[in-house]
């Protein structure tokens, strides 16, 4: 089995996001970037499949600027065999990513594609589903457990109010939820090995995919700040405030 994981370079989860003063987006200069946490879980899952013998090859794909190669290198240090970098400095919307991944699937013929359920920068939660639709594969989204055997995948999904277990046919697209696994630290010997693993480079044009934006961002603003609360003396005061100040009752 061949597994492909898709990883995105995003602003590190520890960074306090700042909106640019011209409201066109968020500040990214001099900001620490790292692998989208859900994608790290995807890589870890792929590495585990590789280690338990279910997968023979694990490929990590990232679409983005030159520096996305650092993110690929991290996946290689965690245990992926090789990387593919589709270089673009443009913003890529979920549909464009799904189309690029489709093109790569046609080239690489993987049996399983694992993606994060969403990226923590735009929180779209669309790419995996769009990809499954474009390639006509089964999908198991929000996975908190994954078992692969005999051409089928058993996926436990985190859904509202509980867990749902489904069985899907391979090839399949799986997106990861937080509880699927705890990603490992890249160990020093593996970091050294990662240096020598190959990363293929290509561009959206090479893959024949039009990534032009379908959405226009009008503006990006900070969420409005919450005002400090007050402690009321008694129920009468609360009712009075709800009625006359908040005007909700």
């Amino acid at each position, binding site marked *: 089995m061949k597994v492909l994981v898709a990883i995105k370079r995003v602003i590190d989860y*520890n960074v306090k996001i700042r909106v640019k003063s011209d409201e066109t987006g968020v500040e990214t200069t001099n900001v620490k970037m*790292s692998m989208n946490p859900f994608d790290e879980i995807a890589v870890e899952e792929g590495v585990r499949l590789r280690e338990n013998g279910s997968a023979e090859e694990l490929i990590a794909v990232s679409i983005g600027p030159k520096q996305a190669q650092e993110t690929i*290198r991290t996946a290689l*240090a965690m245990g992926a065999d090789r990387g593919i970098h589709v270089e673009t400095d443009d913003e890529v919307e979920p549909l464009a990513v799904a189309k690029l991944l489709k093109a790569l699937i046609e080239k690489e013929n993987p049996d399983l594609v694992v993606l994060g359920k969403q990226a923590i920068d735009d929180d779209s939660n669309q790419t995996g589903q769009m990809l499954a639709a474009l390639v006509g594969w089964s999908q198991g989204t929000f996975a908190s457990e994954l078992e692969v055997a005999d051409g089928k995948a058993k996926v436990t999904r985190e859904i509202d109010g509980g867990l749902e277990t489904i069985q899907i046919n391979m090839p399949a697209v799986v997106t990861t939820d937080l509880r699927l696994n705890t990603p490992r630290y890249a160990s*020093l*010997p593996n970091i050294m090995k990662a240096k020598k693993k190959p990363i293929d480079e290509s561009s959206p044009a090479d893959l024949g995919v039009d990534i032009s934006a379908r959405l226009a961002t009008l503006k990006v603003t900070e969420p409005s700040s919450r005002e400090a609360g007050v402690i009321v003396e008694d129920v009468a005061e609360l009712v009075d405030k709800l009625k006359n100040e908040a005007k909700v009752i």
Partner: protein
Amino acid sequence: MNFELPEELKMLKETLRRFVDNELIPIERETLDGAKLKPESEKWLNEKAVELGLWQFDVPEEHGGLGLGLLAKTVVWTELNRSIALPTRLPEIFGGASPILYNLNETQQERYLKPVLDGKLKTAFAQTEADAGSDPAAMRTSAVRDGDHYVLNGSKRFISNALGADFFQVIAVTDKEKAQRGGISTILVDADAPGVTLLREQELITDDKPWEILFEDVKVPAENLVGKEGDGFKLAQSWISTGRIRHAARGMGIITRCLEMATTYANDRVTFGEKLADRQAVQWMLVDMYTHLHQLSLMVYHAAAKYDRGEDIRNEAFMCKVFGDTKSFEAADNCMQIHGGLGLTKELPIERFWRDQRSMIITEGPTEVLKMALARQVLKEYG
């Protein structure tokens, strides 16, 4: 000219940063009992070292370790010292040994080095005396050859980890006439040898509890001499510079954490209607920390890379230790000031950084003494 860490060391730094954030900082007040790791913490930490592929990172390859270059080691030291979870003065973190022991001959290695690396024997380094601290050549403890053994007499003080040590690496005078010019030697002394007494534990502002040790007519087999007679100081030269770089790398970790804590707190804390972060008095403290961290990183990476190329870094090491220890103490001091009363509490790591870094300006070469030694070089070079 490239001022960047190589890509793999950046990744190592990143990995360790996360390890420290996720796993060390949350438990940093629970791992130690005094200055030492609790046995359960030590076991856990050793397992983590294996998982990170850093077990025995500081042990030369010919002794079964990773034999990392100095630049790589500075990255490890810096990141691990962003937290107070680990002991301040133990070389054995992640499975190591004090550097003298790598100079042992084969028989000595079997008996002393291997068990230390396997965690079966503990050891302490005994050089300082009441009248010989920064100036160890003034030491009086003597080892006099008598047939197939030496007879050791004298006393040492401020000996870290003496309690529980199975043997001591004692620096002693073997030839009074020659003194520091070939009259001082290193000898391994079993702690249970007759005539060895742990006299008194010394309480300090740091959590270390070093000891005063008395040697009275202690018979030490002559085969316990390390290297040749008179080699005592020469042996020390082989690792003293890297030890100074280690101080500076540690300082980088501490300044980093202080900067993180101080900026976060300054952004949150409001006094007289304004954030501390909006006060110039506080901003300047933060900017100084930031600048010192940058300066120190350049100094440390430069010195380490130079050492890894096989060049001499004596002068760089003096500068790194002095600058690293004093600026990291200053960072802890200012971070404490910004936190007000909270900075003094044991809930935060600042007070420990402050106490430890204050002590670093004195131990393993006080600032004044290192500057004195560096001054000789400066006068030679420019005079």
